[in-house]
């Protein structure tokens, strides 16, 4: 379809519409030579791959990828190398956070927001905020739950901060490492179109944890139903970001392995949420004061209900 229109720069919306109308067409964009291999590969696929083409065919992703190749050339023992991971502005971080809280169905978080500029600012500080939010909220919630009891003495529970920090940082760094290793290994067996670098996976995981911050603050409300509704809701939001990111990466693989991978990702995410809720937040039912039962041999036994 090399009409005269193809010779000039096309907005990628038009290309996507044309592709949607006629998925088998060969699209050639002459002024973007790097696009040709991707589009030629794409026309051999089923129509369901349009979303990938749409996202891979963004006009400035080439530029950013070229720039990414240039900017990360500093050797790893210099300070400038690590500065490349913090090359984000305020509005970019806010955009990425917004993208993780309001996931657009069908849009890939990495392609849409990260675009070869993964940053470590977001994951690191979102995890730090989450650690302190969970510790502080847990402490507050326990305080309010046990407020009326005469035997309760408030303790700040500072130990839990280090436990929260270990858990959350381990989750945000070790799970992406394992996932990246797994995806690399599968890539050697099955050629995947979409593959992510380790930092992009860390980025996605870090930003997907953001929705747990307001959730942890709302967990102060001492109602079991409210807490579990919040768990499900936040799991849906951040889980959908993860699923939409990683499904294209395993889609080409064996069906069972793809489903198992995505299921494991979701399961670990749910485990984190439920584990934090169970460990840091006392159950509201422990509000009932313990009855004292005199035992037969004269000593009193206090039972907790």
């Amino acid at each position: 379809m090399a009409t005269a229109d193809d010779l000039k720069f096309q907005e990628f919306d038009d290309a996507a519409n044309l592709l949607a109308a006629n998925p088998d067409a060969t699209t050639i964009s002459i002024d973007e030579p790097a696009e040709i291999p991707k589009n030629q590969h794409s026309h051999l696929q089923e129509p369901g791959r349009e979303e990938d083409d749409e996202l891979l065919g963004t006009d400035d992703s080439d530029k950013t990828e070229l720039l990414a190749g240039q900017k990360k050339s500093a050797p790893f023992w210099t300070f400038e190398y690590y500065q490349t991971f913090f090359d984000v502005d305020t509005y970019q971080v806010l955009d990425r956070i917004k993208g993780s809280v309001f996931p657009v169905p069908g849009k890939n978080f990495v392609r849409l927001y990260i675009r070869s500029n993964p940053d470590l600012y977001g994951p690191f500080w979102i995890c730090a905020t989450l650690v302190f939010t969970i510790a502080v909220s847990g402490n507050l919630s326990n305080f309010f739950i046990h407020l009326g009891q005469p035997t309760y003495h408030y303790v700040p529970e500072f130990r839990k901060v280090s436990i929260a920090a270990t858990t959350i940082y381990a989750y945000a760094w070790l799970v992406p490492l394992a996932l990246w290793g797994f995806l690399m290994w599968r890539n050697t067996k099955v050629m995947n179109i979409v593959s992510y670098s380790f930092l992009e996976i860390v980025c996605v995981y870090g930003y997907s944890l953001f929705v747990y911050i307001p959730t942890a603050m709302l967990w102060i409300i001492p109602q079991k139903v409210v807490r579990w509704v919040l768990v499900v809701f936040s799991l849906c939001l951040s889980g959908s970001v993860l699923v939409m990111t990683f499904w294209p990466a395993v889609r080409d693989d064996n069906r069972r392995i793809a489903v198992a991978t995505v299921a494991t990702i979701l399961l670990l995410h749910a485990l984190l949420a439920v584990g934090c809720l169970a460990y840091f937040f006392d159950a509201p039912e422990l509000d009932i004061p313990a009855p004292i039962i005199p035992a037969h041999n004269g000593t009193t036994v206090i039972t907790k209900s």
Partner: protein
Amino acid sequence: FPGLADVSISQDIPVEGEITVPVGSHSPDEDYSTLDEPVKDTIMRDLKAVGKKFVHVMYPRKSSALLRDWDLWGPLVLCVSLALMLQGGSADSKDDGGPQFAEVFVIIWFGAVVITLNSKLLGGTISFFQSLCVLGYCVMPLTVAMLVCRLVLLAGAGTVSFVIRLIVVGAMFAWSTLASTAFLADSQPPNRKALVVYPIFLFYFVISWMILTFTPQ
């Protein structure tokens, strides 16, 4: 020495000259030599520098004196006193108590280092120790808050005392954050200021939380 017979120094050229060695004590360098001054002067000079910085924190203006002559004495004193005051609440070996001395120390210093690294990685122009200096000195309002909290807790531990402590800690937290932001925000590129200010906010929030939740056993 037969070869030297030809070499002759004519007798009418005198070898003379003047060699003067400036045997010190009237060049301007003498004013900077601090080796001979009394110990009191040395200590007082450093104390005055530390005191001047405390005053700068109390009335934060965009002055560069705090940044130019950085020192870490003030932060050390503040950190140790804050950690000591926070320590008194958990003398027994309860697991769920407040932070130990080492934990407070590590949080303050490690937190300050991480924030400094963060601002440098984002492209800030401030030097490492200058930033540590500013962050450490701006803990001063919170140390004052801790002192006030301990005094208020001596009087009682009811709701009124909690409200007083909350107000005092909240005001000092705002003061610390504003003071350090006034010094540090200028050295950042303008489109990343919020990215640098937020970790400072988190840092002082955590310290304020530790102060507010302090309960004597």
